């Protein structure tokens, strides 16, 4: 009697057998052999395998695999503030002229000097804000992770950890703006009582995690 219901061959079997192979042969995102070289420019916030970056404590055979800064979009608040401050004297001049405010009590040329000094202060504010972004750098080499914190000219902190001590890496990307511009916070957890590494607002956090996990031998868990 012919069987009416013959179980079809489950394609899952193929997948099950194929899965280990694909895992083994899948192109590992080996961060040690990155395909391209790049030269970061003044506004670069993400660069794989940078050639023109030199780190003071780097060992002779140590190569920087990943160069990170906060995403450039994070500079928008201070750029906006600077622009507002730049046009403030124009508004003030308009108000003075409109209401005929008498400034004759000020010494000769003082308005010009005060205006120039005001613009120098804005220049300094923009400079400090830019350098705070510019020198907040995170590096991943094939041996360790380096995090350089620089803030408001007075705070400087350099933290490093060997890759052997890295236990886990994760990232969070919360909010519409972060999703649109593809940046987020990367948390690298280290063993024992050592401080964790927190890369704030770095571009392509998935790729960062991928590289870190490939370096610490957890490719299969990579996002």
């Amino acid at each position, binding site marked *: 009697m012919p069987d009416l219901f013959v179980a079809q061959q489950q394609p899952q079997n193929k997948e099950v057998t194929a899965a280990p192979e694909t895992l083994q042969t899948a192109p590992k995102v080996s961060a040690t052999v990155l395909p391209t070289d790049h*030269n*970061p*420019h*003044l506004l670069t916030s993400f660069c794989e395998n*940078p050639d*023109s*970056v*030199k*780190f*003071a404590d780097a060992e002779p055979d140590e190569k920087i695999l990943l160069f990170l800064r906060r995403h450039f979009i994070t500079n928008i608040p201070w750029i906006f503030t600077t622009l507002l401050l730049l046009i403030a004297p124009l508004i003030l001049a308009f108000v003075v002229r409109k209401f005929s405010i008498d400034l004759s*009590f*000020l*010494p*000769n*040329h*003082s308005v010009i*000097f*005060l205006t*120039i*000094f005001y613009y*120098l*202060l804005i*220049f*300094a504010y923009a*400079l*400090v804000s830019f*350098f705070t972004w*510019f*020198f907040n*750098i995170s*590096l991943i080499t094939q041996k360790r992770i380096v995090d*350089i914190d*620089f803030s408001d*000219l007075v705070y*400087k902190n*350099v933290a490093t950890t060997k890759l052997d001590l890295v236990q886990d890496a994760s990232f969070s990307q919360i909010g519409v703006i972060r999703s649109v511009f593809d940046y987020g916070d990367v948390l690298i957890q280290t063993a024992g009582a050592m401080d964790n590494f927190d890369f704030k607002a770095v571009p392509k956090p998935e790729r960062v995690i991928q590289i870190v996990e490939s370096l610490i031998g957890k490719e299969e868990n990579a996002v």
Partner: protein
Amino acid sequence: MQFDFSTFSHFITAPFLFKISFLFVLFLYIIFTLIIFNQIRSMDQLISEIHSSIIIRAISLIGIVAAISLFLAAVVIL
């Protein structure tokens, strides 16, 4: 010989006080720009990008030159 305050008080006018205060604040600003330059140099030694280092130093130098120029102009003109 006694110090004559009445002669000295002729110099202490509003423009004079303004000039002195302005020069003092500008002097502090020059020190601030020098600190910026020094910190940049220090950070640049720690980690340097060959292409950006020159631009960064040039920008901070512009700040110093502008501040010193304004100071000298204030000494002469104000």
